[in-house]
């Protein structure tokens, strides 16, 4: 029998606000453990939660960018359970009336557009972190993360394959990074994803029993876990067994899922200390106005406005900073495709090579455009330009200064080039002979020799013309 895979994802995303959701503590990481804590986030007697207004703004912005309806009134509730990383023994979350509902993300599996529904998106606080030291009989608790704002985004069970889940996650990440509410780094824990997965016979309308998978550390792990779980469930069903509703843990090293715990009933109660969150239309529209053009729309516009191929447009618009950089360059240079080539080839490779983020680029988009203009004017060759570009990347100096300082101006003096060409011809009789015998490749070698002689500064078009004239 053929089975259809049904996948829904629950994604937790940390919001990039400066302070925690219910207190004034910093959300910064990497300091000594427990250095950003106060009576409120430590759950001390009589401490009360104080709503951080920017969290509401960030969350509403995310909701709007994900095409959700934003509730005019939403509330906070408590999810009660005991764990050492949860100071109050309850997590303040939105259970009964969440902030946002009924959104979607568009994906394009196999070139076909498909909408993945978002059932709800709500605000909540993060828990702390337990540190298990190798060999010790105890765990340590770090509560710096306790109270960091999160949004939980629960999709509809609309995905049908690991590929679709992967596309959904990628688009979600791109959108949330674009609107600058989260950096969505799964490896660093600022995006966490749980999978709900079930199988049903193809053509069936009813859902099968679903299994939840936790402990996924990367997008790749999500893909692998789904593929593994599809197979596991299929084998059970085919051998006449049935699936139990349970939570399983993904083991990245071994590449399989293991039983973690059975079904649990959570205990929710209303949070009595907080007023409902009210978002009236004028505030909602103010938040909406802060949402920049989103990646899909921007990609389409780049293809139209700059006549970029789809591939170029999607690579460049995948990151807002990259796309902003690109658009700024295009303002100062007439040929968008040339800019796209430089951004996609030279810039991307040097970023990959150095591991540096585009955020910290030392040179400006205008400086890159200035350099492209210098190529067009013949001031430098395309080859030299690559060195100039590297120098700009490292030092942040303007291309003019680099060219001047290093004496990289192209040699376009007819007489000077002619005498160098003559010298090369005289020193390479064999190649000259080859050329005369019809081996056109020999010309390339001679051009290379001239370039070597001039340290690459010779104007390539002129070298070509002069050589051919001298040889013929």
């Amino acid at each position, binding site marked *: 029998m053929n089975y259809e895979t049904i996948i829904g994802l629950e994604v937790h995303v940390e919001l990039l606000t400066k302070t925690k959701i219910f207190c004034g503590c910093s959300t910064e990481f990497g300091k000594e453990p427990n250095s950003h804590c106060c009576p409120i986030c430590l759950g*001390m007697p009589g401490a009360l939660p104080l709503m951080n207004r920017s969290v509401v703004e960030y969350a509403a912005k995310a909701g709007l960018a994900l095409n959700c309806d934003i509730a005019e009134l939403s509330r906070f509730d408590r999810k009660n359970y005991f764990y050492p990383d949860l100071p109050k023994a309850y997590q303040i979350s939105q259970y009964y009336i969440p902030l946002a509902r009924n959104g979607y993300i568009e994906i394009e599996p196999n070139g076909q557009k498909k909408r993945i529904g978002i059932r709800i998106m709500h605000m909540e606080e993060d828990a702390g972190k337990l540190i298990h030291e190798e060999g010790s009989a105890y765990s340590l608790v770090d509560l710096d993360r306790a109270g960091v704002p999160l949004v939980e985004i629960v999709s509809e069970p609309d995905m049908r394959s690991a590929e679709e889940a992967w596309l959904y996650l990628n688009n979600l990440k791109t959108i949330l990074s674009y609107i600058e509410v989260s950096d969505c780094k799964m490896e660093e824990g600022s995006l966490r994803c749980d999978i709900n997965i079930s199988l049903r016979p193809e053509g069936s309308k009813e859902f099968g029993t679903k299994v939840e998978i936790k402990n996924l550390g990367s997008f790749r792990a999500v893909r692998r876990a789904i593929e593994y779980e599809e197979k596991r469930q299929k084998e059970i069903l085919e051998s006449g067994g049935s699936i139990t509703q349970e939570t399983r843990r993904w083991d990245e090293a071994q590449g399989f899922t293991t039983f973690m715990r059975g079904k649990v009933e959570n205990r929710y109660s209303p949070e*009595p200390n907080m007023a409902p969150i009210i978002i009236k239309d004028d505030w909602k529209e103010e938040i909406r106005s802060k949402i920049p053009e989103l990646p899909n729309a921007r990609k389409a516009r780049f293809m139209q406005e700059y006549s970029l191929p789809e591939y170029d447009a999607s690579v460049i618009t995948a990151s807002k900073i990259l796309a902003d950089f690109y658009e700024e360059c295009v303002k100062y240079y007439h040929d968008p495709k040339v800019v796209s080539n430089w951004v996609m080839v030279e810039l991307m490779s040097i970023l990959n090579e150095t591991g540096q983020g585009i955020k910290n680029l030392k040179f400006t988009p205008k400086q890159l455009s200035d350099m492209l203009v210098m190529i067009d004017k013949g001031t430098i060759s395309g080859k030299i330009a690559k060195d100039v570009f590297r120098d700009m990347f490292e030092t942040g100096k303007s291309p003019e200064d680099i060219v001047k300082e290093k004496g990289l101006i192209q040699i376009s003096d007819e007489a000077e080039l002619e005498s160098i060409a003559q010298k090369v011809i005289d020193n390479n009789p064999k190649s000259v002979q080859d050329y005369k015998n019809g081996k056109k490749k020999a010309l390339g070698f001679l051009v290379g020799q001239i370039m070597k002689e001039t340290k690459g500064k010779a104007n390539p078009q002129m070298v070509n013309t002069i050589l051919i004239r001298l040889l013929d």
Partner: protein
Amino acid sequence: MKLHELTINKANELLKKKEIKSEELTSALFNRIDSFDGKIKAYVTLDKDRALEAARLADKKADFTQPLTGIPMAVKDNICTKDLKTTCCSKMLENFVPPYDATVISKLKDTNAVILGKTNMDEFAMGSSTESSFFQVTKNPWNLECVPGGSSGGSAAAVAADESLYALGSDTGGSIRQPAAYCGVVGLKPTYGRVSRFGVAALASTMDAIGPITKDVTDCAIVLSAIAGIDSFDPTSSDIPLSDYLKCLHDELNGIKIGIPKEFLDNDVIDKDVKDAFLNAAKIYENLGCICEEISLANAEYALWAYHITVAAESSSELGQYDGIRYGHRATKYEDLKDLYKKSRGEGFGTEVKRRIILGTYLSDAQNYDKYYLKAQKIRTLIKKDFENAFNKYDLLITPTVPTTAFKIGEKIDDPLKMYMNDLYTTPVNLAGLPAISIPCGFSDGLPIGLQIIGKAFDEASILRAAYAFEQNTNYHEKRIKWEEGFSDEL
């Protein structure tokens, strides 16, 4: 008059006139505590050095325009005091020293108040007799065989025994008013949201209120003025402006309409003496020109049960934070994490607390939530409606504060249901979030009887005025305790 017998108002006058010094007054209170508290056991922690230091500072500044400056006072032990143990009278927090002040404490410290120490209470404020304290049983100063009431029993006893000029208490279902009634002092439960709850260990967040316990109504108005108001650390605190609570103290009550809920008088739990004292109080109001009429609060009979369900459910969530992980009692021997929780909480909490946590957890789990907690909230809405209807016609409601006078120590501790009946007249007020005061209105067998005056939300002014007028025309509040043998009344 001896120094420890002074009211805030009188002491402030003397301080202003430089007839006494705060240090002198504070020392007198510690002397009083030294000779009396061995029997009364109102205090669980004293803070003598810092209190005297604060008193000397007040004397040095010599600015007594704020009436609480340099006045010695006591704090219920569930209100956090920076660098001073705050135990909630539980083994769980036996050694807990908060690194912060509750907002009410910061406000008092700003006026240079003198904190004598922390007072005994029922563990985590769960009780009506102060017997469930982990540390000690407080005695009713009027009769040492009786309870002082609770949960703010230590605060009420300290004020009644002249071991403090005033005290702070907390009231979730009557915990200020009932002990005030049992100890013959004045206790005010302000409107929910009138006084910040920040830094006060929660019992039930939708009902907890912090308020004063004082020797008379003027003092009550003075303390309320100092602690009330919006607080950026308490999102449920209200921005409704405060009244001038001292200016409203006059005995002009002509034409005030007072409702008397008949359900509170026609039942089989009320003592005859209490009923008589109450009816006499109503007569006094009529003599003052008020119109007193019987009314019905039809849903009040369900209040006690709605109240207990709400408190149990909310407190089981509130008390989860006492897990022995970050602070508080932690078991020394345990198998694993689950065992650590079980043992720490099992050892740290007393019987009544465990009873309510277990009940509350049961009532609020997924299967029972609608059946009990939500139903209780519906009853709560009906009770609020009853009060609203009553206040459409009446300015104030009066009831006895408690159906009985103080009972014997040990009499009800093993019978929770009987104990809960103590709160019959006070819990509806908390469910509706209204303000109410208890003032002395008579005696039965030498034990005080309390009169409860309930007002409209945020209308503490009308309550205080009516209470003040009553006080001006009676002398119950002036009656002194006749100390039995073995007590030294001399300093």
